[in-house]
């Protein structure tokens, strides 16, 4: 035994050693939900594109400051900008723009004006060059103002470049420039827009905390002056999710702990047992965290939340030992007791592992980690009970605790006696009638929002900002693929035309596409030739007639007759103007050219789908629905997994109990699942992947009760009963608490457990209805 104890201590020390590098820092918790989601294995290009886009979007904080009075709004915004600039958390701040900035941006693009034409001008020059040019010239001469963007009037007398720029996509939507600020006005309020990229990772816990505090401080300042501050950015969502999970974890952990304390003290009457139970849980958790960090390098948020409910299960093994101690009274011998209950708890561990193990088979990184974490924790607890505890429980149990055993046992006897024959059938039928109709009300909901549910406040701010600024999200975008740069740009142009018609119908608020800025080479050649022709034949004469100086006319015509600078993507990307759309270009890889087009705010996703379907080479990427699809697939796999696990459990049990008995032992759990589904239907809980996971857990945990009862037939019946009772209570408490989570997925998981385990306990004694009668044993 000494060897085992030493081995156990060694295990703990190893775990501590594995954790050593992480001590003193906050726990490396991964709050990026995307990281735990399955990859879109079919399209790695999509994954890469998504990662790039998400990185750019996620790393930016967007603030909108508003006030009914424009001057105060300016003042508030300027104040916010100053403070943002001073913060080390942000890389740079885009706030008030110096007027010259805009000009400097457009001027380099003007160099390419000989090859650029707006759609209106193209049409006009093709159909009626003379009339169209005359109209342009009249307008140009009639309106005061020189050429735009630093161009002299003489460089563009017809104002064609102006037209080109006015047709460029305006991702700004309803934004305007006012006194250097990007502004939106709504309902009498003046809003100023600021944005700042983060200096660091949006999923860095320290950054999240500090940034949230900064934003809250800024908001308070704005509100103190009767203004408002809206903020959005992936970092805020992640921070909130993290905090919510931590709060929940603390709550669940605390309540579970308190409940366990109360139960342990109440039943076993010795602080020692409480401490030992704590030790079992702590050791299990320690091993779980160490192993997970060793293998994965980080813990995912969901692992923590689900893992917190590990407490209830880990305690089962030590409880069994203590219950046994209670029953043996003064004839207590640790080793003998361990040998006797070992088969039961080993079987219990194996069946639970089979339940969790099924998760590892799914190609879902987050679930795999949960499986790994939980398995490591359970094994750690199991070994603690087997190797670590015996040293501490050599003495017999407290006398004061023993009287509890007999009443409990008697109640159990009475119940199990009642639960046989016709009454059993009757009860089962009653339960069936009450619950099975609930099946008709069952609905599935695989939406990712079941898992990621931001608070209403954050969503409201995001929505408001989107309404004011017209800027859309980057969760959905078009991925374009072609076999050359020219073909890709041509495809982009076709997509733009489709999107333009959506914009005209009011279905879409705008879009960002490189093809708007860089026409395909064929188009450029066509436009240049058209322009040359029109000016040569008609334009010259018009200019002279209007009284333009000869020198200027000659200069313009000569300019046009020079070989022009052709615009290609590389040249465009080198311009500062391309900064907002640079991330959309993915270039060539293995002969395939790719780029993204990001839609602005839209009313209905189905229109975008239609557009994508109508154009070969264009795919609408929608991570959220792709993930929801994955969820659905995994749910269906999990259901199959459940059947397989059940089978595996039966096979495992049959090795010890024989086929018939094994089937009987599996019956309570199987029935419980059926009844639970019915109840979930009545409650309106939507079935999704996480409910399916819950059922896997119910299988692993619920079958333990039948096993304990079965084992109790041969040895220490009352102890077994007490162990089952306590196990059930602690499990119900820890999983049941999950049913109060704010995340629907976790809530569904918890409810499934609560009801499933409840039924399993209720029906477990039915295994006694068949087979040899229980051997009488003196309590």
């Amino acid at each position: 035994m000494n060897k085992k104890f030493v081995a156990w201590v060694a295990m703990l020390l190893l775990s501590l050693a594995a954790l050593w590098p992480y001590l003193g820092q906050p726990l490396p918790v991964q709050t990026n939900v995307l990281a735990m989601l399955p990859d879109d294995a079919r399209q790695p290009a999509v994954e890469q594109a998504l990662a790039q886009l998400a990185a750019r979007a996620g790393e930016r904080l967007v603030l909108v400051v508003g006030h009914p009075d424009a001057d105060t709004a300016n003042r508030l915004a300027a104040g916010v900008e100053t403070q943002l600039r001073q913060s080390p958390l942000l890389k740079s701040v885009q706030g008030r723009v110096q007027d010259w900035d805009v000009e400097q941006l457009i001027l380099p693009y003007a160099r390419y004006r000989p090859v650029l034409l707006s759609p209106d001008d193209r049409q006009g020059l093709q159909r009626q060059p003379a009339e169209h040019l005359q109209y342009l010239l009249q307008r140009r001469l009639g309106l005061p103002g020189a050429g735009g963007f630093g161009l002299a009037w003489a460089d563009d007398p017809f104002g064609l470049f102006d037209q080109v720029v006015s047709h460029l996509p305006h991702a700004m939507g309803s934004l305007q420039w006012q006194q250097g600020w990007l502004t939106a006005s709504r309902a009498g309020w003046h809003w100023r827009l600021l944005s700042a990229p983060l200096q660091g990772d949006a999923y860095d816990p320290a950054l999240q905390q500090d940034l949230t505090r900064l934003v809250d401080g800024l908001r308070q300042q704005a509100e103190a002056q009767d203004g408002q501050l809206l903020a959005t950015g992936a970092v805020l969502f992640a921070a909130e999710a993290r905090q919510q999970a931590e709060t929940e974890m603390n709550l669940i952990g605390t309540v579970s702990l308190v409940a366990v304390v109360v139960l342990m003290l109440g039943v076993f009457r010795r602080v020692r047992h409480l401490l030992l139970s704590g030790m079992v849980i702590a050791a299990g958790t320690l091993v779980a965290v160490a192993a997970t960090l060793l293998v994965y390098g980080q813990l995912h948020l969901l692992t923590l939340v689900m893992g917190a409910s590990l407490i209830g299960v880990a305690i089962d093994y030590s409880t069994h030992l203590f219950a046994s101690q209670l029953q043996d009274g003064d004839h207590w011998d640790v080793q003998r007791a361990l040998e006797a209950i070992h088969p039961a708890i080993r079987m219990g561990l194996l069946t639970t592992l089979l339940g969790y193990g099924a998760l590892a088979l799914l190609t879902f990184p987050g679930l795999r980690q949960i499986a790994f974490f939980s398995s490591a924790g359970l094994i750690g607890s199991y070994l603690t009970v087997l190797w670590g505890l015996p040293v501490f429980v050599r003495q017999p149990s407290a006398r004061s605790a023993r009287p509890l055993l007999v009443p409990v046992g008697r109640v159990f006897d009475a119940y199990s006696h009642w639960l046989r024959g016709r009454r059993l059938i009757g009860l089962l039928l009653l339960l069936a009638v009450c619950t099975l109709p609930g099946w008709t009300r069952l609905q599935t909901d695989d939406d990712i929002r079941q898992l990621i549910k931001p608070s209403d406040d954050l969503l409201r701010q995001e929505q408001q900002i989107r309404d004011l600024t017209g800027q859309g999200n980057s969760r959905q975008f078009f991925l374009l693929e072609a076999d050359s740069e020219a073909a890709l740009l041509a495809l982009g142009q076709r997509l733009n035309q489709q999107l333009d018609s959506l914009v005209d119908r009011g279905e879409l608020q705008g879009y960002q596409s490189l093809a708007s800025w860089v026409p395909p080479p064929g188009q450029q050649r066509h436009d240049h030739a058209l322009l040359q022709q029109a000016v040569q034949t008609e334009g010259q004469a018009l200019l002279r007639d209007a009284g333009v100086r000869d020198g200027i006319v000659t200069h313009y015509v000569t300019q046009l007759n020079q070989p022009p600078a052709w615009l290609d993507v590389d040249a465009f990307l080198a311009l500062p103007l391309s900064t907002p759309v640079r991330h959309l270009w993915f270039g060539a890889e293995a002969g395939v050219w790719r780029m993204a087009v990001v839609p602005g705010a839209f009313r209905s996703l189905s229109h975008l789908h239609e557009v994508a379907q109508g154009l070969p080479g264009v795919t609408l990427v929608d991570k959220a629905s792709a993930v929801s699809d994955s969820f659905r697939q995994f749910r269906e796999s999990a259901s199959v997994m459940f059947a397989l696990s059940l089978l595996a459990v039966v096979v495992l049990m049959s090795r010890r109990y024989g086929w018939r008995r094994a089937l009987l032992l599996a019956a309570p759990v199987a029935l419980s699942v059926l009844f639970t589904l019915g109840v979930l239907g009545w409650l309106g809980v939507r079935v999704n992947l996480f409910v399916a996971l819950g059922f896997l857990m119910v299988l692993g945990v619920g079958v333990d009760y039948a096993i304990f009862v079965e084992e109790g037939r041969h040895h220490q019946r009352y102890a077994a009963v007490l162990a089952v009772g306590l196990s059930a209570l602690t499990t119900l408490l820890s999983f049941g608490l999950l049913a109060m989570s704010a995340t629907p997925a976790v809530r569904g998981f918890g409810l499934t457990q609560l009801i499933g385990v409840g039924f399993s306990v209720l029906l477990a004694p039915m295994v006694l209805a068949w087979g040899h009668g229980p051997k009488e044993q003196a309590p």
Partner: protein
Amino acid sequence: MSVRCWNRAGWPVLMLLCWLGSHLSAHAEGLLDQVSQQLARHSVVHADFVQTRQMAALKKPLQLSGQLVVSRAHGVIWRIDKPYRLTYVLLPKGVQEILPDGRRRERTAQDIPGVGSIESLFKGLLLADPLVLQQHFDVVAEGAPTAWVLRLTPKKGPLQRGLQAANMSGGEQVAQVVLQERSGDSTTIQFLHTEVRDPLTAEEARLLGVDG
């Protein structure tokens, strides 16, 4: 973008300044209030205009003439008659351009970024809000309500890019506006036969999109 908006918005600004100039003197608060109250009685103003544009690129100055209609409640119509037909209709929701063949071309706020500031200028002016004028310009007023000169220098903003200064002068109504552009070009507009004429004619109402 500001210069482009200046291009498109040039005439609207002009008209608004004219309309405003004919009713406001921005230097003394008291004078301003007086005039704006005086204005409140008139809801529709008509005028003929002659515009002379002096550009370095042109051999000789370009002259345009046409008619202006200002409706306080509905908008502004700026119609060029000679040497070619081109009409601009300024509405709160945006600017419409009417070509010689009758085709209308919308220039809504989305189309011309920066027009937003012109729009609020327009609305503010339409509401006879002296503060709006002062929001966009540094104003120096000279003279008396019967004969005044307003010297406007644009503040930092989209207007400043193209416009160096604007001078308005008049008495009961505005007589002349001179715009100095940064490039050295200048535009002079003279207003003749200014009348106050309530209500709108059917044609004007149609253009301004007013229900009969």
